[in-house]
């Protein structure tokens, strides 16, 4: 059982790392209107509502921390934002079932929007950049749309990974009984 848990942790960590890599190496070349999608919010939100608050929280925390280390001004800010995103998405675990695509899309979009808003408020509004409408129409909304489009592709992949892990856990649980 312990071995399984380790497998789950390792595969999840790998998945997060690969997404982070793509986010900062591949996607800067695939920008549309100098905006790139936010893979990390998709991953955090998806693992949140698939596996519950705790795992969503942890994944959000670690992916945020990665960003903080490499790009943030102070360590812990992105980590906190993503942590909360993961937790809140985890609260929707009971409403979620695999075949539904609407809820994941809505949740991802909402998370992305809240994320954009938070970043604007904390890092721009506080530096007295009051032109909110410009940032809304040039960064937040385009990023939101691009992210939703990418979610349509990435979400099935996350679902697949999750189902594989789940199936394996179930099988071994049956074996023990």
């Amino acid at each position, binding site marked *: 059982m312990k071995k399984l848990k380790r497998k789950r942790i390792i595969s999840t960590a790998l998945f997060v790392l690969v997404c982070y890599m793509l986010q900062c190496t591949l996607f800067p070349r695939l920008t549309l209107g*100098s905006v790139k999608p936010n893979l990390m919010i998709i991953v955090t939100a998806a693992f949140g509502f698939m596996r519950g608050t705790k795992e969503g929280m942890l994944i959000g925390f670690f992916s945020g921390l990665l960003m903080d*280390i490499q*790009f943030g001004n102070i360590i812990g800010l992105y980590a906190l934002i993503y942590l909360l995103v993961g937790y809140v998405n985890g609260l929707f675990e009971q409403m979620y079932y695999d075949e539904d695509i609407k809820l994941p899309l809505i949740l991802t979009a909402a998370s992305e929007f809240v994320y954009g808003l938070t970043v604007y408020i904390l890092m721009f509004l506080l530096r007295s950049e009051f032109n909110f409408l410009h940032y809304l129409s040039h960064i937040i909304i385009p990023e939101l749309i691009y992210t939703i489009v990418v979610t349509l592709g990435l979400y099935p992949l996350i679902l697949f990974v999750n189902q594989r892990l789940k199936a394996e856990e179930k099988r071994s649980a049956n074996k023990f009984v």
Partner: protein
Amino acid sequence: MKKKKKRSTVSNKYWLLCLSLICVLLMALSFFSEKASGPFRVIANVTVIPMQKGITQIGTWLGDVSDNFQTLKEIQKENDKLQARIDELTVENNNLQEDKYELERLQELYKLDQNYAEYEKVGAHVIAKDSGNWFSTFVIDKGSLHGIKEDMNVMAGSGLVGIVTKVGPTWATVRAVIDDASNVSGMVLTTSDKCIVRGDLSLISSGRIRFEQMENNDNSVEVGDQIVTSYISDKYLQGILIGYISEISVDSNNLTRSGYITPVVDFKNLQEVLVITKTKAEATTEPPAKEKQEPVVSEPKEDVNVNADEAADTEANADIDTNADPDPGTNTDAGAQETE
């Protein structure tokens, strides 16, 4: 069953609280001391940096392969053009060499021997860009092990890219001058008028940077003039080209001018950069040059402050500016280039 569920949500709330507290603590720590983030940088070094390097290498390789398919004709045409350019430049270079010798002689006379053209540089690859859309920072593949330090200036080709803000063992984060949080003290090369070059997120897609607070005096500053880093900046070395003025207008207060700069660096396709391995602090505290240099540098500095307050006596200022000018070796170069 119900009890268990309840307990797990309670423990999850503890988790939330704990992790949030950790985040807040980390924020506080890194806000007050730089050392707090040291261990984390080492973590990044062993996890993401090798992969980022690998992916970038594959990317560059693929790019090279596709480049090789460029038609031969195109290259030949370019070759012809470049050959003509070389001839042109050779003539120009000779003229400039002459000027340079003259300048050196004069500088020696003035005991102002500072050659800004010969900063030592280290090349580095860009291996990752900021994960979000809000900031323009990127990661290079050289770090403290290669002698990179914070506040080192970063160039690409002949233009200023940005400044090193974070250093890990084998990586460093660079903040580009187009970043919204970036402020560079610049000056017009021809007239030495100071201005602030401010990165602006809303201008990034149009490929321009804004400059402001340039004094509205009698010096004529025109579209196409070069803006370089100024001598009063405490982080940026003097005389590095930022870009060319593409638009300039007098502000409504009639005291200052502002406008837009087209940077010389193509920030969208940045692959290799050069890090100048000398910070401004080191350059200005060099023992032999210090005593002679300081009075000259500090004098116009005060002058700027006065001007910012009351930009009235413009003539006197222009005088002092031209007096304080003989330092950048690039000055005469640029003048010749423009006329060419």
